[in-house]
């Protein structure tokens, strides 16, 4: 495990912003930290980086206590938007960051190339578009070849093209074996990129598993005539109005059974719950 937390809690007064969160991130995976705005994602991440001290509970990042130099030097992060000096160029901002991380200047050029910012590296940060700022944030996070990349809402505020670029970048990093903890409230983003997901709602981790497991088994929707006869023929089917839901993956066998019994098959298609449906179910119930 690259990150583990055990009953991690942060309270401000009586209010638990993060409430006994126990999560784990495995090496080499893209872990989606999913939750609505204000659910406690950023506070959890800030605790993993030592910016916020937990009220109770424990956390380990790469076998170290959060916020220690040994842990931080192995982690690259972008939290709630990039924080850079507006009067410095992108390249100079990275040089400043590299000096703090003890990284040489050659790495600066390498990460600029990695995020496709070489052409704009001499421009002042304040003149960057939001997408460029986010990419510079990722470049800073990549300095020093971290073992873990923590990206908190990296597509926030980006236009669709910028979002697609950022997703491509994360995918490319994941393809190189980079472990990524990606916090987001965008379900599509998480569904597209992540291997495993932790869902947080009102400070509590309400689920943690693969996207597939979260969505549950595939159900086949069957529309047939007469539907009652089909219902009797297919064991374990459930009738929902004029359609059947069947926990069966072999659609061919199912259709043959119905056709041999002289039932007209009008429609057979997989019916899967979207992550969005699962998410609303979970966060609504939490």
């Amino acid at each position: 495990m690259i990150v583990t937390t055990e009953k991690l809690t942060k309270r401000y007064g009586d209010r638990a912003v993060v409430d006994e969160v126990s999560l784990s991130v495995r090496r080499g995976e893209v872990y989606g930290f999913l939750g609505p705005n204000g659910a406690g994602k950023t506070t959890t991440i800030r605790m993993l980086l030592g910016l916020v001290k937990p009220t109770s509970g424990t956390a380990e990042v790469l076998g170290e206590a959060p916020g220690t130099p040994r842990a931080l030097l192995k982690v690259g992060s972008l939290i709630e938007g990039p924080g850079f000096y507006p009067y410095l160029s992108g390249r100079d901002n990275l040089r400043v960051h590299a000096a703090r991380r003890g990284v040489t200047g050659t790495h600066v050029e390498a990460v600029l190339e990695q995020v496709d910012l070489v052409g704009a590296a001499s421009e002042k940060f304040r003149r960057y578009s939001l997408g460029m700022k986010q990419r510079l944030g990722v470049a800073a996070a990549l300095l020093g070849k971290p073992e873990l990349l923590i990206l908190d809402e990296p597509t926030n505020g980006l236009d669709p093209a910028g979002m697609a670029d950022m997703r491509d970048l994360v995918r490319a990093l994941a393809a190189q074996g980079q472990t990524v903890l990606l916090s987001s409230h965008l379900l599509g983003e998480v569904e597209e990129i992540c291997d495993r997901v932790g869902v947080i709602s009102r400070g509590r981790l309400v689920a943690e598993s693969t996207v597939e497991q979260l969505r549950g088994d595939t159900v086949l929707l069957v529309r047939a005539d007469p539907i009652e006869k089909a219902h009797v023929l297919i064991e374990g089917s459930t009738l929902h109005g004029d359609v059947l839901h069947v926990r069966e993956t072999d659609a061919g066998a199912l259709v043959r059974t119905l056709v041999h019994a002289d039932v007209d098959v009008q429609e057979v298609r997989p019916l899967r719950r979207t992550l969005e449906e699962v998410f609303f179910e979970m966060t609504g119930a939490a």
Partner: protein
Amino acid sequence: MGSVKAELLRLWKWPATWVLIGVWLVMTLTFGYVFNYLALNGGTNRGDLSQQQLISSMQPENVGAAVVRGLPMFGGAIVLVLAALAVGSGYGWGTWKTTLTAGPRRVSAMAGTLGALGIVVVVLVALTFVVDLGAAVAVASLEGWDWNLPGWAAVEALGAALLIAAMWTGFGVFLGVVTRGPALAVGLGLMWAIVTENLLRGVGSLLGPVESLTKVLPGGSAGNLAGAVGGAGAPGVLTDLSGTTAALFLVGYVVFFVGAATVLKVRRDLV
């Protein structure tokens, strides 16, 4: 070392650093030499300064005093603004977050900021000395005075100038950390350096204990140290305490401001 290098790089390229240093150099030249030179050559000097005092204040051997006399109030205010901006802006820009997740311990990150600001302050004092010396030599040459280069007294005065600047820097850093932003830190700092202590000195003429207190407040201590090393004749310069006493108070303030700011920085959550 990495933290100092990083902070120095960003302070060096920060226009605000050079604007403030430039403003200070123009002020020290204008009030220390230009106005005095004009007063000496046809001005209407109806103040306390005799012609001989004007000449003395512009002599190259008295450059140390010229450097230190501006720092208790206006120079100090400029240094305070620089420090408050350098620390406070990091909260608004989100650069503290970037700094504290880069790897160094919080104490090291803070030490980097303080170290870099310290270097900038040394540069500021050194530049002030060089510019003032240049102006003094120019005036002495124009007027045909016999002049000597600054002696040991200038070293003492420059040491005092550095201690005064260090105190105002610490004050600015402290305010930047406490207020977590540049605007309030600068506002409060300027209010204190230029207004509050002067008002208290006014009240001090009516209330004895307040008068005693004003002598040892940050600006008062700075003014007394400047006065003790020959920096008389400028706003904020006092002669109520010995140089050693004033210096000890200033060291105390530096330790308090820097220590309190560091403790706060280390302990507080960065949200």
